[in-house]
């Protein structure tokens, strides 16, 4: 049983799922679900749609080159059944999967490394550049128009008007 990849999102198409479209030059487009099929019909480019694997690979969001990806490959020669080999393969799958997940986590961590410092720097810069927008507490006491409570008072006045109207 062969598990194909979706043409649009590159996820695995399991048997009995999805739809395949055969163009007149015999190229087969397989889709994992109607979402991908619809996007194909809308002539969208998977490299420009953010949720696809193609986009994430192209923009360095995901790990692209790794030795763990070498195990998943299209082989056109059928493998002869061997009990020991099957057992070892099943054991290896778990280990390889663990290694892959770890490496992906490391990749994500390295990608996000400078983010916190950058945000901090930006916030500091904003504070320096737009300090004039912040008023000192003494000024606020002198000029009540700048404070929030003034607006609150206004709202309460409106309410009182309305209640008066209701009473009438």
């Amino acid at each position, binding site marked *: 049983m062969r598990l194909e990849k979706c043409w649009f999102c590159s996820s695995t*198409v399991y*048997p*009995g*799922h*999805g*739809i*395949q*479209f*055969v*163009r*007149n030059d*015999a190229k*087969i487009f397989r889709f994992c679900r109607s979402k991908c099929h619809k996007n194909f*019909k*809308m002539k969208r480019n998977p490299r420009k749609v953010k949720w696809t694997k193609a986009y994430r690979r192209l923009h360095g969001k995901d790990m692209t080159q790794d030795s763990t990806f070498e195990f998943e490959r299209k082989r056109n020669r059928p493998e002869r059944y061997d009990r020991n080999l099957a057992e070892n393969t099943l054991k290896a799958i778990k280990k390889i999967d663990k290694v892959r997940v770890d490496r992906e986590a490391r990749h994500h961590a390295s990608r996000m490394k400078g983010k916190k410092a950058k945000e901090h720097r930006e916030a500091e810069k904003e504070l320096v550049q737009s300090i004039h927008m912040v008023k000192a507490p003494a000024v606020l006491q002198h000029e009540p128009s700048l404070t929030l409570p003034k607006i609150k008072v206004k709202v309460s006045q409106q309410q009182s008007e*309305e209640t008066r*109207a*209701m009473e*009438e």
Partner: protein
Amino acid sequence: MAALFASKWSHVGRSLLGCLASNSSGVLRTSHEMTCSNYFSQQQRTFIQMRTKLKVVDNSGAKEVMCIQALKARKKGARLGDTIVVSVREAHPRGKVKKGKVCHAVVVRAAMKRGRCDGSEVKFDDNAVVLLEKGELIGTRVFGPVPHELRNTKYVKILTLADHIV
């Protein structure tokens, strides 16, 4: 005073609603137009029924045929792999088949999706047939991709002649 307020509120409310409604209708209309244009640019994805025009993908000499009857007594029409009765609309000069001839044909490609034995679906670019004469193929070649479902029919020869089986 209350009446005044009420009238004011209702007026505002109505104008708001009206604006919303007009907006939404505009959005709906544009999307509808888009879908329509998309739909008409593609092949009709329905059953093959009376007056459906199909392409002929063998070297029998016919170019285009029209379905005049779907056999198998299905109410809705023929699908991928079904046999139909056709009348030849367009034919090459000096071909085996002349214009106006009525013969049987097998649908080898259909734009309407058809379920496969494993539960997935398959669909093609166009509607195409191969012409038959007394249960035998008229042509000696089949062009383009052909589904492997034809193996279950009487016309396995189509698969042997085809260049691509999907």
